[in-house]
């Protein structure tokens, strides 16, 4: 139950966190800790230092800035789940978050921690892609914004560079958009075996899946199939067929590649039906 030894540093601000990261280049950032600490307890990871950024005030909270929502990286799942701003302007996030882990996990886990960790079975990445979110990161060289589409680059890997910290998530507000997340949870861990997020806005649909492959990805075949079409049960069912070829999908005790591919179709259909109110 004990992790290996490490040095603990608590950052009070983004700039302090960045400079601590420069002093301890092999350090890991500690956010909610619900991915990192379990791996450290099993000694699958033994970082020499942890930099705790969970209490950095400027990294917390949800606010509306013009046409988009700004979500601080250290905003917890619980805060996302109960945010009135999100419920009003971006209900898919509270809906997806409600299905993450359990209440204790949601009390500690953060959006920034989840996205930076880039677990292929994490729930939020699918919604980020479907929402066309922008992810702001900051490092010694300053800040930059990465589109969600370019953020997830592999299993547990992102477009962030050494020394950078994920600081904010920007989500465009789409009045009238219909959105939903459908998840097939792993029966034991409750991670997503497959989770599909859809955002339907006017005649276009953005859809993304998590759990299926090395990282969350857009379902472009589905998006094209529904482009310009009304979201009827018929159109949805017709579009949700063979969305991903099984060959490159994940496989484990719970789901083979073929079954995962099938679940992508089913979850896509269910998310769309829910979004369409059918």
């Amino acid at each position, binding site marked *: *139950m*004990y992790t*290996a030894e490490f040095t603990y540093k608590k950052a009070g601000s983004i700039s302090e966190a960045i400079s601590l990261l420069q002093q301890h280049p092999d350090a890991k950032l500690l956010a909610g800790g619900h991915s990192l600490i379990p791996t450290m307890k*099993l*000694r699958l990871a033994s970082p020499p230092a942890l930099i705790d950024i969970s209490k950095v005030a400027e990294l917390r909270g949800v606010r509306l800035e013009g046409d988009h929502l700004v979500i601080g990286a250290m905003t917890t799942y619980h805060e996302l789940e109960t945010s009135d701003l999100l419920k009003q302007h971006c209900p898919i996030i509270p809906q997806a978050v409600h299905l993450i882990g359990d209440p204790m996990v949601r009390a500690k886990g953060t959006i920034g921690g989840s996205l930076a960790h880039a677990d292929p079975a994490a729930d939020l990445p699918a919604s980020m892609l479907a929402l066309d979110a922008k992810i702001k990161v900051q490092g010694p060289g300053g800040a930059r914004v990465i589109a969600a589409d370019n953020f997830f680059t592999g299993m547990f890997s992102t477009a962030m560079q050494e020394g950078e910290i994920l600081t904010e998530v920007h989500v465009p507000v789409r009045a009238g958009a219909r959105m939903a997340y459908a998840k*097939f949870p*792993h*029966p*034991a*861990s409750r991670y997503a075996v497959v989770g599909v997020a859809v955002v339907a806005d006017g005649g276009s649909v953005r859809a993304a899946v998590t759990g299926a492959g090395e990282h969350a990805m857009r379902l472009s075949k589905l998006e094209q199939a529904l482009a310009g079409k009304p979201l009827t049960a018929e159109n949805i069912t017709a579009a949700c*067929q*063979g969305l991903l070829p099984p060959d490159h999908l994940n496989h484990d*005790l*719970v*789901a*083979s590649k073929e*079954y995962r591919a*099938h*679940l992508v179709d*089913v979850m896509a259909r269910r998310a769309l039906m829910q979004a369409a109110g059918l």
Partner: protein
Amino acid sequence: MADKLFGKAMKRVEDPRFITGTGNYTDDMTLPGMVHAAMVRSPYAHARIKKIDVSKARSYPGVLAVITGQEMKDAGINGIPTGWLHPGIKTPPHYAITFDKARHVGDIVAAVIAETRQIAEDAAELVEVDYEPLPAVALGSDALKPGAPAVHDDVPDNVCFTWSIGDKAAVDAAFASAHKTVKLNLRNNRLVPNAMEPRASLAQYLKASDEYTLWTTSQNPHIHRLLIAAFIMGIPEHKLRVIAPDVGGGFGSKIYQYPEEIIVLYAAKKLNRPVKWTARRSESFVTDSHGRDHETVAEMAVDQSGKITAVRVDTIANMGAYLTTFAPAVPTYLYGCLLAGTYTTPHIYCHVTAPFTHTTPVDAYRGAGRPEATYLLERLVDVMAHELGMDPVEFRRKNLIPPDAFPYQTPVALQYDSGNYEANLDKALELVNYKALRQQQEEWRKQGRYMGIGVITFIEACGLAPSALVGSLGAQAGQWESALVRVMPTGKVEVFTGTHSHGQGHETAFAQVVADELQIPVEDVVLVHGDTGRMPYGWGSYGSRSAPTGLSAIVLATRKIIDKAKKIAAHLLEASPDDIVHEDGKFMVKGVPDKAKTFFDIALMAHLAHNYPADLEPGLEATHFYDPKNFVFPFGTHIAVVEVDPDTGKVKLLRYLSVDDCGPVINPLIADGQVHGGVAQGLGQALLEEAVYDKEGQILSGNFLEYTLPRADDMVQIEHDHTVTPCPHNPLGIKGIGEAGTIASTAAVANAVMDALRPFGIVHLDMPYTPEKVWRAIQATKPLSQAAD
């Protein structure tokens, strides 16, 4: 005197400590000077240990000792024996720390003792073991193949034992002349017990008196003391005290003598410091004895009239790498002898082959053999009913043992003492409204919804007895139970039992019965259990024996108290003992209610002995050793209703109803709770749980991220009722209820899922019914044009 407490849903007296966080579990304990153990475990299922270099670990600051198997063997510590022997059984040694080969993942190769647990775990990583990995075998049938790697050098064919029961010739003849037969190949999935409290052991050695104390997570501390004293360590039995304090669930997994208990005792003496070890859950997964793991060919024959004429079973029962304490009994006497179930089947034959494999040992897990028997029998019954075009309930009804047939001698040794199966079945059918359910199923099917209804009847033989019988079958233990009832001068009563409560609520239920018997307030009774230093003796709690065996002993001891109290009362009231009656909490002269003494009066005088019968011993306590005449035979009907989502294959439990007959119910709150938990565990086997091994003997579902324990949202509120058929041969007519839920629910849920899948033409799938397995089965039966739906 208050109303009788027997039958009252009294709140548990043990709960205040648990709900306020003041329970006392083994890992909660701290002793002065206590140090900590961490185990170095084999990552390989099978490997030769070429060399162990402990020097780095030994020199790590804070490390006090690194113990190897060779050291313990040289110190004269023997292997851990099994407690049940069959003719011809192979019992290769099971050393606490192995020194030649590792035989399963998690086999201990060294133990590190250090000042803190952190240091012990750090240093355990520094023990350098030079392993030569060897081919391994995980599946029982693979272990029996020619050329399979041997788990033990002196058992080259891996056959630990073979066993059979029944008249094979008669069974074969019945099959030859059968109207219809069905045959199923069944895999009974391997389970990990997963009591929520991980195992823990704390040992203390007192040099001045040469005495040891072991606090450990045990269901039966006396068995540990006996095994450690007589077989393993040679500690004189009176110099070893074993205490099982609050224990966080057992389900069988805490019956057994485990290596870590030997290691902490050895280390405590070696270092003259108390030594504690607590399992991490990932250790529990690979070291707590597992359950089930059968590969079976099961067949049933019927005659023209639809009566079952024969059942034939051939089972490979995986024993794992070593035999733990009761392993050989589980797939034999607790399994083959149960194959009559509730039916009049005249001819039954069961053959079992039990191989060693490079896996965690397999032993009794809640139900132990009986769930396996019930599962295969009830699957056969459903498949046969379908084959005959009969409703599965009507087929059962036709074959149930009628109420006037008791005592009923089965063809597989057991004699059922009592039963009323059809009345119990009818009650369940009425409560669930079976006809309406079948109609609803028909309507749903038209809408493309797949509901399944699983109805099963079962018996559970529990409270193994009498001792002479179990001894003749191979038990190396008695199966009687002891009780000591001690009345104090103030009339307060201590009751000592050899059974152990680790969730079953004995402190409440047993006290209710004692209070009734002695006609005193229940608050005046305390139950003491789990300490070899305090009770006469005990064989512990497992096999649903605590109430029928342990409580019966207590009742008979209280009756000795009452007999003696009557003599004291007679003396004080100047009457004949024959004229004293015990009523309304008083001992009074029959017909003269104002000539009476209270229990307190008697208790006090028994201790003062001032005005006392000349020929009577002072004091007021009684011991009773109770050896039952027979097993007890609870039974019942369980009904599961499920829905299968054909899109994903996911099975959802819609309803669960059980009608159990455990005889008179002492405390319905507790008895019902036992059923609820048992049902969840059985449902876990049917839908969720499986210890999956790969070909190399690595467990792939070795933590809660991969091994699915039922969670709150996997369950529904359980509908539950009773019928009452008393046991004719114990003082209260009581039977066990601890395992019934698990014995019944696996089969009920399995039959429900298969019933749901009937429209697809699916006859049988192996458990657990995981979504992909069900989805694939559906896909395989669909015409290609529909498969894409």
